């Protein structure tokens, strides 16, 4: 082995042998790192899940370009713009279809216990095929009948167990706003911050439910391009054509716009960042305590090593190695436990919690830095190991 590698390997081995010697202390240190790890994973997981769920509706639309009112901050509270913009977009040869989408909130009466709750209504032309909701395709014909809706099966349970009722009695009558509607089937959209539950319906039925709205205004226009058309070029041309009351965005831009609202316009982003930071600080204190007491209880031995000619640098690398070993040993079970918790908590909260590689790498980097910081703090205690005081 090269001398340069020895300068890293030998302190690492010394640190490992020292950690391994005291099983109970090692276990508590690993538990501390694991705790921090799980806390950070859960915070980041919730954060991503909430942002994902907030933009799930927009992400499930199958279109290339969208028109939206510039004042719209979030899709659950849209500003309207003239329906004529959809027709204008059709003037471009590369535009194959421009489909108006209508969104509004109204109250839904729980068919089981009669309680009322705000529900998001999504209306669009059933023929256009811009919505990719699972379960929608077999319901298209039924939804063309007057006063019919499809219920989002991933709505929160407070809306009532519509799936069970449908299974028992088939399509049945429900109440949306002041209207009687027929629930003809289930689709999957997903609850979000802005909407606990969703109902999907045709353009015509949406107008019948929202009689106080001006019929010539829309909330969103989804544009599909002819096959092979260049999206970015089409966006640039639409921006030239459209007046100032609409923004032209690609789907990723639309999703990012929605996320930016939740991230910056609400305290949600801060809350989860703060939670993660607290987890890291607690973890750092635990690791620091373990390393510090390890050094404090072995001061004579460390001083002896210094008397034998070991440098401060070698002993510092040993302490740092111990910190980084704890990072690795705590991260692995922390990752496993978080994986399990994602599945359990995701089921309980209806949030799309999922582990992904980028987040795992990111959390490992955070835990690694946390342990390194604790190691650097604990290293200061090495100064107390003075070999001149040994005699």
């Amino acid at each position: 082995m090269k001398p340069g590698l020895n300068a890293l390997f030998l302190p690492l081995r010394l640190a490992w042998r020292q950690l391994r010697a005291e099983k109970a202390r090692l276990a508590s240190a690993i538990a501390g790192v694991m705790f921090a790890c799980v806390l950070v994973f859960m915070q980041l997981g919730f954060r991503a899940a909430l942002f994902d769920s907030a933009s799930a509706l927009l992400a499930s639309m199958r279109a290339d370009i969208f028109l939206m009112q510039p004042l719209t901050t979030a899709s659950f509270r849209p500003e309207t713009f003239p329906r004529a913009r959809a027709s204008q977009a059709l003037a471009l040869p590369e535009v194959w279809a421009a489909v108006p989408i209508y969104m509004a909130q109204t109250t839904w009466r729980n068919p089981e216990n009669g309680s009322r709750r705000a529900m998001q209504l999504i209306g669009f032309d059933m023929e256009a095929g811009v919505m990719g909701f699972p379960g929608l395709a077999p319901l298209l014909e039924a939804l063309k009948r007057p006063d019919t809706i499809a219920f989002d099966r991933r709505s929160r349970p407070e809306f009532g167990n519509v799936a069970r009722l449908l299974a028992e009695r088939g399509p049945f009558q429900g109440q949306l706003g002041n209207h009687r509607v027929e629930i003809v089937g289930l689709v999957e959209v997903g609850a979000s911050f802005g909407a606990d539950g969703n109902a999907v319906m045709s353009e015509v039925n949406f107008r019948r439910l929202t009689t106080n709205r001006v019929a010539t205004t829309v909330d969103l226009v989804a544009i599909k391009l002819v096959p092979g058309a260049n999206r970015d070029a089409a966006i640039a041309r639409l921006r030239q054509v459209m007046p100032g009351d609409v923004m032209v965005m690609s789907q990723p831009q639309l999703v990012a716009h929605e996320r930016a609202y939740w991230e910056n316009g609400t305290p949600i982003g801060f809350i989860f960042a703060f939670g993660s930071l607290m987890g890291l600080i607690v973890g750092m204190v635990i690791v620091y305590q373990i390393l510090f007491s390890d050094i404090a209880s072995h001061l004579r031995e460390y001083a002896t090593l210094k008397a034998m000619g070991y440098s401060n640098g070698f002993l510092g690398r040993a302490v740092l190695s111990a910190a980084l070993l704890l990072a690795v040993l705590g991260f692995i079970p922390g990752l496993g436990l978080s994986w399990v918790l994602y599945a359990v908590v995701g089921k309980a909260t209806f949030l799309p919690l999922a582990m992904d590689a980028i987040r795992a790498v990111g959390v490992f980097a955070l835990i690694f830095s946390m342990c390194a910081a604790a190691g650097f703090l604990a290293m200061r205690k090495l100064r107390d190991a003075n070999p001149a005081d040994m005699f």
Partner: protein
Amino acid sequence: MDTMPVAVRGLNYSYGTGDMARPVLRDIDLTLAPGEIVLLTGPSGSGKTTLLTLIGALRAVQQGSCAVLGQELLGAKEAQRVALRRRIGFIFQSHNLLGFLTARQNVAMALELLPGLTEAGRLARAGAMLTSVGLGDRGEDRPDRLSGGQRQRVAVARALSADPGLILADEPTAALDRQSGGDVVRLLRDLAKQRGVPILLVTHDPRILDVADRIVAMEDGRIVQADGRTASGPRPGG
């Protein structure tokens, strides 16, 4: 005089600074010849331990000359002192072995500082060293499974394993009973004589005075008696 392993001339040392300065060593002259075993005795507070830490490069020299194994320590940098310590074998009052390492690994720790040794080479040499202190069969035991005398013998093996040019020992028998204390010191003497390594040993223990080539007594920071011989004219070892 330059060829002497230890050559101390006109050494003064004080703790504290300014008005608070308290001198502990005054005008010390001391020389160790190759292979010579010197005992340093004297009441507590006489400065013998401070002298040992100065010679061991564990403290910075303030005034006077202190040359150890050819390295002048007056004005020496921290890195020079660390490098010199690698060429000195230390034995302390308590064994100070690392509790989480086996006896053999503890001895090998002294060898990890030497360049050009493989792990197998280090362990083989540590094992041979343990055999020469009579613990060849206890190499895989942790210190807590050894007796006090055995632990101090491991410490002796550790101090000698890296082929030091000088052994410094501070009350190595203080924590041991008469029998094992005497055994450890005689073992140390025999191994040092075989290798021609000089020893400077601080002790209160009258039972081990017989191992010395020369006894130096200190009082109030001065050398008061050098066993009939002058400090500048030591008899070579043996």
